[in-house]
């Protein structure tokens, strides 16, 4: 197990996949992180040297990811609600925010549009 950004990650995990397990890191960002440290596509966590793991962790601390990103998103929604915008209101009601019709299905809106989704 290797400690990456405070999370224990199995040694046989692909580096690219391990990076993508963090909220806010997708394929593109993971590609860029890998490129920055010259890590090839099929590299596994066990193949990384300890300085490289530390370097990746410190790189990730500079980015807005994981809980920090979730809090940021939540704060943005709260701001919308606090200043009384239509979008904030729709978030609070659990209804579509961007002008979709509400006659039929709005399942995604019900699931995701909450004031406290990401916090």
């Amino acid at each position, binding site marked *: 197990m290797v400690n990456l950004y405070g999370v224990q990650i199995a040694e046989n995990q692909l580096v690219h996949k391990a990076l993508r397990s963090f909220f806010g890191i997708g394929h593109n960002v993971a*590609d*860029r992180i*890998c*490129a*920055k*440290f*010259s890590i*090839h*596509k*099929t*590299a596994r966590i066990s*193949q990384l040297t300890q300085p490289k793991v530390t370097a990746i962790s410190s790189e990730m601390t500079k980015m807005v990811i994981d809980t920090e990103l979730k809090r940021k998103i939540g704060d943005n929604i709260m701001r919308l609600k606090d200043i009384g915008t239509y979008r904030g209101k729709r978030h609070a009601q659990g209804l579509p925010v961007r002008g979709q019709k509400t006659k039929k299905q709005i399942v995604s809106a019900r699931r995701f549009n909450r004031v406290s989704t990401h916090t």
Partner: protein
Amino acid sequence: MVPPILWRCLRTPPITHPLKPRPRLHNFTTTPPLSAKPLKPKGPPPSSKMKSGIQRTQSNKIRIKKEPIVAQKPAYEPGQRKELRKRIVLSNTNAIQVVLPTMTADLIGNEDAAGAMFALPSGEEDTTIDRLRALEAFQTKQHWPFFHRPCTLFRRETVEVGRLFERVMQRESTGEDGWANERAILHGYYGCGRTILLLQAMTWALQKDWVVIAIPNAQDLVIGHTEYELEGNSHLWLQKAYTTDLLNKILKANQKTLKRMKLSQSYRLGRIEEVQKGDAMKKVLETAVLDPLLAWDAFNVLLGELGLPGSPPVLFTLDNLNQISIPSKYRDPAFNVIHSHDLALPNTFLAYLSGKRSFHKGITLAATSSKCSRTLALDAALEGREVDPYERLDPRIGPSIEGAQIIHVDSLSKEEAKALMDYYSESGIMKDTVDLTTFNEKYAVSAGNPRDLFSTCLRMRQ
């Protein structure tokens, strides 16, 4: 009118005994209530002969028979599938043995031998096939498992490859101290036998005790599956893991020659390791194989030593040249695509192919591939045509193969096809007898392409 039953009688509650349980009654019966048997509960009787399907519909409970969870054994162990995929079978005891002459080094440049089949050298003491195997000269899908032993066709193109050897060997035999370098690219349509020609060249080189350095598939270098890192001085990207593998192959294939090679000066490998003047080259490579950090330095030492007078001749081959003529899948820290020519190993090979670097005596041989996305710049360079300035082709590709002889590998001539079909027939994989009609038919269907000829000749399964 007065009703026959008085309302008052209906309103009076029925008399019940407080202690006795009230028997459940049928709607209509002549049995006195107290002597009647109690009613059976609803639902099917336990020993009912009803179908299980009906039973299930009647009961509300879902009855699932729980089976104990058994940990399933995986169909393949880790790495087993890759091993199966890459396994090379070179002999088939079920195939009929065909007596053929051996492909020896005496045949180099022999035009009379063209159009005949030859067996690759094998025997009790001959390790050529094992060494070729170590160099990954044999590849899957070359139909080796259909035959009793590996045999190849001596073609017109084989004669041309032999000419390269002849020219280098002439210099060697006359004792001239000049440099003798031959550079060539094998180019042709799909399935025309470029890789087999490389194999034939390697066979000769190994028999003549040359040092053979072979990159079996250039694709491995560029698809981003091996480690890479930037080397500060040369601004090239080193692939140390791949280089270690390459050194391992070189070491396995050229044990005898490398043992005889002595270093002309001391070198430093990596930061600490040092090799002294007079050490055997084999020892250097054995040290480097154990530590990937030393691999690139050791490879350079090997190439450097092979460039000095008195060193053994070299055959440096690379298959699938097209793959290193397109951008690689690697990225630099600024997220720009790394050009294949900026990777150290392809760069080194192309330096030898274009004549920037040279061995003291040696052949640099590349083969193009058909299994690759389009490489317009390479095609233009191979054709030697003027590039239209409005065509935005990669400007680095043309100079990288400049001056290399292009050996066009054509489809088989009729004599060659006949020899090959006779061999298939004698090996027992061909159903029809080889007469003029079948020959013409199969030759026309395959258009003389060796790969297609094999598939047309292959006996159908009955």
